């Protein structure tokens, strides 16, 4: 049980920090809060590519990839250390997370030699930017319910359908796409995975505006997209198996990833000392104190849980279901903190006098938190995962398992 760096870890940290010092500027606190994985405009995409190619040249890209594929064979903890250190610098957003974290490892396992040679180096240098074309309007929690169809025509596949919740689709060059190729078999058995070019005119991308007002996701419409059979990743009808590899790597990436912002519970202490409640400083009110203390305890628990997950990853365990705990608790915590902050910041809850004031800050927290409770598997799905995969409870009764998809 040791919270500090081991000597090896300390050496790695020093090396990373030295290189970053020489190649980037320290953050000075004036930077705007922003999603670490999303570019806001083309200029930012260009700067992100430039930074990624410099990292790749110096051996800091794809840290946990095997050396054979241009990686550094780093441990999960080293990845975390890198993320911590890089987080201190004013660097562009990491729009390569899906390519390097999800697609790369999936191609390594299920790809042909050609696919590996074509895609892996370009993912590493940032030349290609990937997005994940899995979810659909009628297939969210139940991903295996996808309806996007891929029909074989000679040596080509013709793909039509609609994807949704696709981060970064509008600036991505490539997408990893799950499609149904055989509707005559049960739902989990008739899918196949493809690697597609987003620039194809058969693909149209539209941003989705969220309740916070910003747009991090897209709808993607695919209308008779033609791809060669060489775009198929893994065997025909083996798409679900391939998708599970991608999803496992997604869990891994989230586990070691830089936490995507969000307010610190301690900020509520500062707020409570500046505002009044019932005619006294709010921080003197017992209920305010109780709620803030409980928020802090829960937030610390989430932070330390992520260290436990990393420890188990670094011992070589597969990225397991423990990640569901953090996932389950994070969104609700942020939502409660947002609501509390908004209310604390003024009786006129939710009414902001000027952009960037306390109300605006906590309101944004409150309106983005619902996304945490849904995206990447809803709270309800996380509870089922914990119940069935960790606690070993009997599964839900499934009426759709052995029926042909076309009969559902």
């Amino acid at each position, binding site marked *: 049980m040791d919270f500090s760096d081991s000597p090896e870890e300390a050496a790695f940290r020093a090396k990373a920090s030295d290189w970053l010092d020489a190649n980037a500027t320290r953050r000075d606190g004036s930077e705007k809060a922003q999603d670490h994985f999303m570019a806001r405009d083309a200029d930012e995409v260009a700067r992100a590519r430039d930074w990624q190619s410099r990292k790749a040249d110096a051996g800091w890209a794809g840290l946990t990839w095997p050396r054979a594929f241009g990686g550094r064979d780093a441990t999960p903890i080293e990845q975390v250390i890198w993320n911590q250190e890089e987080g201190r610098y004013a660097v562009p957003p990491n729009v390569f997370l899906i390519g390097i974290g999800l697609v790369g490892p999936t191609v390594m396992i299920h790809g042909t030699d050609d696919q590996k040679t074509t895609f892996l180096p370009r993912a590493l240098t940032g030349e290609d930017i990937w997005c994940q074309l899995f979810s659909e309007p009628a297939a969210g929690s139940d991903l295996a319910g996808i309806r996007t169809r891929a029909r074989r025509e000679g040596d080509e596949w013709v793909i039509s359908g609609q994807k949704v919740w696709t981060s970064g689709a509008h600036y991505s060059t490539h997408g990893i796409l799950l499609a149904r190729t055989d509707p005559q078999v049960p739902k989990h058995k008739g899918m196949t995975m493809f690697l597609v070019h987003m620039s194809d005119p058969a693909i149209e991308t539209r941003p989705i505006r969220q*309740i916070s007002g910003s747009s991090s996701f897209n709808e993607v419409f695919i209308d008779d997209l033609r791809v060669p059979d060489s775009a198929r990743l893994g065997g025909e009808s083996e798409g679900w198996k391939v998708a599970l590899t991608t999803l496992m790597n997604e869990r891994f990436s989230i586990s070691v990833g830089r936490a995507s912002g969000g307010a610190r519970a301690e900020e509520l202490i500062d707020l409570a000392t500046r505002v*009044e409640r019932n005619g006294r400083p709010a921080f003197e009110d017992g209920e305010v104190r109780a709620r803030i203390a409980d928020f802090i305890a829960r937030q610390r628990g989430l932070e330390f849980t992520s260290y436990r997950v990393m420890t188990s990853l670094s011992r070589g365990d597969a990225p397991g279901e423990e990640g569901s705990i953090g996932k389950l608790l994070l969104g609700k915590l942020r939502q409660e903190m947002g609501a509390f902050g908004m209310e604390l910041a*003024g*009786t006129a809850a939710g009414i902001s006098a000027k952009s960037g004031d306390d109300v605006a800050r906590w309101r944004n927290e409150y309106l983005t938190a*619902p996304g945490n409770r849904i995206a990447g598997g809803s709270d309800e799905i996380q509870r089922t995962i914990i119940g069935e995969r960790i606690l070993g409870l009997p599964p839900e009764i499934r009426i759709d398992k052995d029926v042909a998809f076309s009969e559902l």
Partner: protein
Amino acid sequence: MNFGFSDEQDAIRDTLARMLSDHATLAVVHDCLETAEGFDSATWAALAGGGWLGLAIAEDYGGSAMGAVELAIVAEEIGRSLAAVPFAPVLGLATPAIQDLGTQSQKEKLLPGIAEGRLIVATALAEDGGSAPERVSAKVVQDRLSGRKSPVLFAADASFALVAALDEGGTVRLYLADLSDPSVSINPHDAIDRTRPAAEIVFHGAPVELLPGSDPAAIRTLLDGAAVLAAFEQIGLAERALSLTRDYACERQAFGRQIGSFQAVKHRLADMFAKIELARSNAFFGAWALASGDNRLAEAAAVARLSALDAVQFTTEESVQLHGGIGFTWAADPHLFLRRGWQLKAELGPADLWRERLLCDLANGPAAAN
């Protein structure tokens, strides 16, 4: 004992509900959210045309002088419709203030215009985000008001404002201010619910008229009555959010079933329902206390508000959640309810104010509270 509505009252509800479903659709609310104006003037005009705005105004001033229970029914239906209209400030606060605490000439000047829908009287009680009238620093000296009131809803659409300010003796009283006076300026705010546009009003020595009956106890009673009506508006809103979510749970399929057949969804909807019904029971008691002038009004208003706030927050947040990915998109409906819920909280203040109201009332006994 009879803890329900009469057939006549049910008929009033049906008539209003039909009218509102013609005018104030959720598509209109979405539109209001996008425009700078926010205010749904068409529905307001239709409400006036149907005589709904004069419901609680005496017949002498162009109203129909119905009781508090009928007004509560209107509040609930307005809440359910989500109409972007100033029901709560105008009918919940300004109208009873003028009617119960104003002079004959004040009533003549304002009530007919309110009933006809051509006159909006905004309520400017809060300052700097705090709506407890005990904490007011705006001041009236020789009938001239100076100070900043914020947030004021529908300020841009209003001709007059009902303002809480200190008189020369330092007591909080209510005044009427003409907003067209050049000494008045209005600064728009950015509200979570832009269908109820919020602003700060700055008064630089604006001419005002005192409502002579507005002593502190009368102001408290006014706020208690407004809280009861607001509870009905909140219940209407929460019930609509539940009904929307229930319909979605019956329609949306996952794992080969309607998601409403999963206990995670079904039981959450049941919890919403239970919270709403609990709030409704408290609101019924509030309506009765308001209508009968019972001395338990302060207690009734506080418990009605506390349970309505709880029901609204739980229902609207979980409505977003149970809609899944759709739920947190701008184009979908659930966030309209989430936003309006917060706005309704803002208008009369959050739970901590009303908890104190309840405990002080219980500690001092109901008689002392009125």
